[in-house]
């Protein structure tokens, strides 16, 4: 079932936190709402599940207008950041709670709880209480509880934020597997770009109550609409270099870096200011567009090494390379940029 938000506006007292937001999540799709804290992504999620009301705008599940519908009647499953398991109930009672509320028979609840527990792979924990479970197990129970009523929509609010690093990896694949198996339309709210990119079909990136761009993860990474999106995605983050257009190239003020303009941008007037976006993986010893600099910092990440390169004018470029470069801090090097992969942004930060 697809989810359609039209012109959603939300105010708290007099501050507008979401303004005129529209978004469509396709049937069976998993959509990430990605953005820094305070961007309104959780507010949007809570408005979809009905905890918050719409000040303006409409919300559709399929063809059904659910804007004024109570939470209880929306048939939405939600997984909260803290998992929100009921501490005084057993795992089985937690998972079965939605069915109990609906007044189903005990046998039926029992049967469904068992199958839901198997789906999330915790059948042996049914008699425990949430306090006796690890973070990952709690997460699985929360998922089972959200899914047991076969909701039309699954919403997840930072579901991995409370887990440690190793578990986070496991649960990423686990959640994606469950979503694909059930074919449910899902929205994932996260501030972590890796989560968004690895788990979701599409990402809606938000900032200050607005959606900046909606795209598939790869597209968004390769072709971010503006500097904010470019900067938000990717770790280590993208390098930004301030340049000006000078006869077919753009170059830094002291000409430490000079990149040829692609054909589509040849028409730009001389002197126009451009911001170059260069991802660290496109700064390599072998690339064509050469520049010289001094290595100021090396961080080993195991399989890869991360270098900070300071150019003469003080610009710092970050490069990530497979282990093997035999250079040390303080060495002067001449490395290159892959010009095809450079992103060009105008004065206002929009990609050209």
């Amino acid at each position, binding site marked *: 079932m697809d989810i359609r938000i039209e012109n959603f506006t939300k105010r708290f007292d007099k501050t507008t936190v979401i303004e005129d937001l529209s978004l469509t999540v396709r049937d069976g799709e998993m959509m990430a709402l990605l953005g820094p804290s305070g961007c309104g992504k959780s507010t949007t999620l809570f408005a979809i599940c009905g905890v918050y009301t719409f000040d303006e705008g409409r919300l559709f599940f399929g063809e059904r207008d659910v804007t004024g519908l109570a939470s209880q009647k929306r048939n939405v499953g939600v997984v909260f950041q803290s998992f929100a398991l*009921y501490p005084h109930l057993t795992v089985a009672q937690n998972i079965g709670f939605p069915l109990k509320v609906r007044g189903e028979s005990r046998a039926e609840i029992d049967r469904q709880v068992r199958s839901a527990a198997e789906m999330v792979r915790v059948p042996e924990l049914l008699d425990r209480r949430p306090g006796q479970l690890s973070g990952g197990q709690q997460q699985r129970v929360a998922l089972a509880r959200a899914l047991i009523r076969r909701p039309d929509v699954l919403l997840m609010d930072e579901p991995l934020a409370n887990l440690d690093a190793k578990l986070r990896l496991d649960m990423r694949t686990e959640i994606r597997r469950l979503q694909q198996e059930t074919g449910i339309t899902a929205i994932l709210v996260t501030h972590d770009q890796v989560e968004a990119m690895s788990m979701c079909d599409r990402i809606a990136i938000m900032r200050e109550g607005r959606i900046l761009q909606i795209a598939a993860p790869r597209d968004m990474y390769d072709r971010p609409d503006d500097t904010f999106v470019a900067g938000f995605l990717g770790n280590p983050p993208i390098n930004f270099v301030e340049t000006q257009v000078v006869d077919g190239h753009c170059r830094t003020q002291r000409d430490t870096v000079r990149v040829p303009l692609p054909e589509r941008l040849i028409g730009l007037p001389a002197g126009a200011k451009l911001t170059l976006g260069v991802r660290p993986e496109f700064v390599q010893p072998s690339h064509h567009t050469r520049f010289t600099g001094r290595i100021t910092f090396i961080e080993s990440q195991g399989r890869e090494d991360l270098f900070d390169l300071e150019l003469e004018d003080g610009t710092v470029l970050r490069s990530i390379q497979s282990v093997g470069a035999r250079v040390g801090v303080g060495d002067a090097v001449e490395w290159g940029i892959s010009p095809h992969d450079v992103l060009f942004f105008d004065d206002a930060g929009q990609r050209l």
Partner: protein
Amino acid sequence: MRSERTWPITVLLAAASLPLLVMYAYLILDTFTDSAPGAVFPNRFTLEHWRFLTERQGSRASIWQATLNTFIFATSTTALVLFISSTAGYALSRLAMPFRRLFLGGVLILHAFPTITLIIAIFLILQMLGLYNTLTGVILVKASLELPFGIWIMKGFYDTVPWEIEMSGIQDGAGRFQVWRELVLPMVYPGILALGIFSFLSGWSEFILPQVLAPDASVQTLSVYMASLIFDDQNFNFNLFKSVGLFYMIPVIILYLVFQKYLMNIYGGGTKG
């Protein structure tokens, strides 16, 4: 830091605590011994001071009647306070409603209000309502005066329940009432227990309200019973008073020993006295 000598402190505290130690030691000792007048130490073991358990003292009702009255008084006020505070506290903590700030401000002001100043007006009101000299009247008054404090405490406990629990309950299809009843209430049981014990002890020990509002022998609580015994010049016998007092205090001691941890929070949190 704590390895320094501490015995001077111990001696100092012991000296300051001496009156209390003496008073409470003799409270127990004197209930089953006799002393010669003016003697420091008792000289005879006896159980006669406990005869009040079976014998009436003067024209008073039996001690068991007073005990029953006290029990009814303490449990009824506790039940009222618990029931009313647990709903009102939830509404103030969690429910979006008109005038919420007004209610909250009112409760906050009243919970610190010195209720005993109202005793004269309450006495007159109960007279007018015909509830003077009834347990019902004094129960209603005691519960009402304790309510703002109870509501305030319960609101504090509800405030600690994560919002996500409630949101989750709503998503699972439960109404707000059901969420409160089945999900939130069980999470504040420790708070309810603490408030319950506190109210019970407070009711059990209460003196002024029953003394002023229900002094008749048939509705006397133990505190009033004991006070009338002490102020009765006919029969001045400290050993008897202490035995009645110890009898009166037994439930307090038991509850205190069992629920010490819960009570500490509430005693520190701002009670009367």
